[in-house]
């Protein structure tokens, strides 16, 4: 049985100014990536891009992007990532670069990695906090991650949690 194997590139959008991240959309990323591939690899690259590349997940708050491509050509796409200097959306240019965190064979592995990575980030944030309120927030966030993790592993079907939305 032949199946189409894909590779999922977990990337992070790094911007100097965090506020300009809000304009992120998966269409934006897609178009920028296509332009970059076209510039770097020409017509061949555009054709390959057309086949199997799609932006699967996007989080504008944290800047996490999950791109999917075919296994044969993921290195090509990966190499074009480094050529992206700015994201353009509706006439507003944002200077950024895409940092590839992880390459996985399935979405699930990328998700697992993202969990680990986010936890690490949170832990790293704690000593950098300036005010007390911030520290409390961060602690609360860490706790919510880990406790719900434990909770979920015990219960069978738990539909009670939302997406962790906490209101200010």
């Amino acid at each position, binding site marked *: 049985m032949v199946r189409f194997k894909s590779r999922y590139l977990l990337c992070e959008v790094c911007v100097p100014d*965090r*506020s300009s*991240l*809000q*304009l*992120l*959309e*998966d*269409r934006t990323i897609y178009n920028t990536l296509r332009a970059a591939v076209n510039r770097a690899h020409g017509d061949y690259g555009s054709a390959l891009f057309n086949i199997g590349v*799609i932006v*699967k*997940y*996007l*989080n*504008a*708050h*944290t800047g*996490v992007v999950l791109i999917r491509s075919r296994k044969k050509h993921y290195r090509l796409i990966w190499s074009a990532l480094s050529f992206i200097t700015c994201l353009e959306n*509706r006439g507003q240019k944002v200077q950024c670069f895409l940092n590839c965190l992880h390459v996985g064979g399935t*979405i*699930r592995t990328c*998700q*697992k990695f*993202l*969990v680990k990575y*986010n*936890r690490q*980030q*949170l832990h790293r*944030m704690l000593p*950098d*906090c*300036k005010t007390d*309120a*911030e520290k409390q*927030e*961060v602690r609360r*966030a*860490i706790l*919510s*991650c880990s406790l*719900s*993790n434990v909770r*979920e*592993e015990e219960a*069978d*079907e738990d539909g009670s*949690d939302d*997406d*962790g*939305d*906490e*209101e*200010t």
Partner: protein
Amino acid sequence: MTGAKDRMREKKMKNQPRNVIYTSSGRSTGRGQGSQACGWVRGHQPGGHSYSQDLPKYITASSFAKARAAEVNAMLKAVSKPAGSCHIFTALPKHMRRRALSHSTKRLPSRLREGAQRLAERSQRAPEKEKKQEPRSRSRRARRRHGNLLLEFNRRQRKNKWLETHIWHAKRFHMLKTWSYCLPLKPTAKSFRASYRAMNTHALLQDLSYFCCLELQGSEEEMLRALARLTSKQTGPTFAAASCLSGARQGSVHLYKADQFPEGSLGPADFLWRPRVPDASDRQLWIWIHPALKQDVLSELQLVCQCFEAVSVSEESRPALELPAGRKRKRDEADAEQPSKRLLGDGTRPAGAPVRWQSPDTAITISDLTMEIVRYRLIGPLAHVVLTDTLHPASEEPSSRSTDEAGVSVHQQQTDIFQLLRGVCSTAELPAGCVLGLTVDDPRLTLPQKRGKSVPDLQQSAEDSGVRDLTLKGVAAHCSQSALWDASARDRVTHNRLSEQELNRRRTELLVPGSRLSAAPQAAVPLLLVHQGGRVRGEERLHWGSGWDLLLPKGWGMAFWVPLVYRGVRVGGLHMSVKHSQFMGQPHFPHDYPDCPAGQRFQSEQEAELLQKFKRRPPSKRTNYIKHGCLAPFRCPWQQLMEEWEELLNMSAETTGSCRTGPFTVLRSLKALRRLSAWSHPSSRRSSSALTHATAAALQKECRASLVWVRLRLLGKGQPALHAMVCIPTTSDLQLLLKDAHSSGPQEPQHKDHIKRLRQTTTGPEDPARAVRGVYPAPLPSVLPHCSRLTLGWVTQGDFSLAAGCGEALAFISVSGLLHTILQQPQEQRGLVLLRNPSSLQYRFARISIDV
């Protein structure tokens, strides 16, 4: 189906996190950093996002942390809950999972087995739940239980009335839904010739209960005065004919709208007076009309008798409490409380519709007896033999009905006459229209074991004086009396009918199986036997197609039908009754009544039907009526024909009289018909009024713009079809015939199809009326001179006549055209015309005869 696929996909993807972006909806401002769900979509987001919302300038660490935490949670949720699969199979470690687990739960460890079984059940039920909630229909057995079937049949009768013999017919006939009835049309077996043979030599049975009966009650003078406005003496005997008034004969009249003779014709009707009862002064009259006519005639009658106030209304049929004779299985009492009853009578009448009207001035009551009386028609020379075999006069006379000696003797006299019928050789010998009332036993009691064919009894001699009296004088008036005329007697008899179940139970209780059942005293059925004369007009084949009509109270339909069928009669439908009229040479309602409103409605329906059939064929396989020169293959434009003949004759006669542009009529006055009939005969015997121009002109002035019903008989080859053209032969044609008696006739040159050429040249938008290729578009050109021979009229019924042995057609011809033709023809060849089918170019010679 995309619905199911989408739902499966959604089910699998419900745990996956969705794109988290900023959107412009108000919800996000309210909830702060709320994430908007946009779904895992391939490609672009639906709808545009406008960034009108104020984006926060700074993202603090706390918000960043929160965002990260939220993402982590979402990911965890996605990861930990496997997509689509249930927990049963994920509870097993990977090395213990097998493929066969999904369909056989026995391979699971016992702790997981119940869960898996529950899951299997749920998955079985799941696709049903996803479908639309259909009403669960009962099993076939439940649907076919007797009570439920009855309810279903009663429901189906709301729209189209069913005859009592509907189910018997539905199994053997093609049915047709017209005139708010569901009627048998043709047998499913191929039996045209067999039915004709039955009509000719044995007997044919038809169920005519769809004819509507209107009953009038009141004093004789009032009724006659009112009804005289609806008929005219010129068309023949009216309601006041002497033989019919006593009640000894059935008569037939043609009804017109009040005081509008000769225009405003409504249609034919049969009528029957009740014989005079010595003490009562009121008389009863039954008028039998075709259901297509019913509303027109009813409104005219109401107008004429001034009966407008409705006295009684129809009520809902309540199911009577009836204990079934023997119960096969025990049912709880609640079930047997209200068994459903078969709908008898008119089911389409809404409850509350008036059935009886009374007039305060003239004291006449009109009642609507539709479907109250069952009418069977037996056609053929051995019809009386079938009747004498099937019916047995009641052995005991119930004492409640007649108290004095005179009453008993009436029944005895009726029985005697009935016995005398066996001695008659053929039904045609009896005088037409004689009526015999009778009280008979239930014919199911003497049902033969096997079907047979009733043969005439050769023992009884025809020289018996009683038989001779019967054939010469008919039945005396007092013997036509019957209890069928009383509504109360009818209801009582209907109510007292034994059900089939009860009858069968009695049969099982007989000591000697197969012997005759004893008759129940209350179940003597009153009925009326009405003789139908067949062909009464004309000179050939007189009394062909005579028969007997059997009138019964409602509810007894099937009880009489099955015994009649067991005596070897053929059964015919609507098709056969049309053929019967055709072989008799009489017009059949509503096909052959173009001047009546019901006839015109029928013609429009027939036109639509024929056009539909024509359009169904592919255009290259259709007959091109334009090239054949046939202007009206589907509907005959009588009005146009009349007007053109008037114009032609006015121009030739140079009279300054204004031609009547009123609606055309059909000539029915007997005097005029007799004269026309005599003139169109080629015999050279002396007739009372010789044909000259003067007499012809007089006749023409008398009946202007009228059609006459003629019978055409082809001289040689040829089979006339529907709407064939009747044309005038030229002198050269007649000379051709003189030279060679077997010549086939002239031929029409082919016309050119102008319409086709017109359509090819003009490419503008065409109105849909012109779209039918091969048929003349709506405003027809001049009818008369269109073909090489002048048109006289059209054929309404045409076929090869098995009775005559050659092609016969029944047609309507314009009177003026006929007179014009006859005047120009030599004496020996008077009455010869040409006949041409719509799809042929060959003219055939035919001879006219008008039956009077």
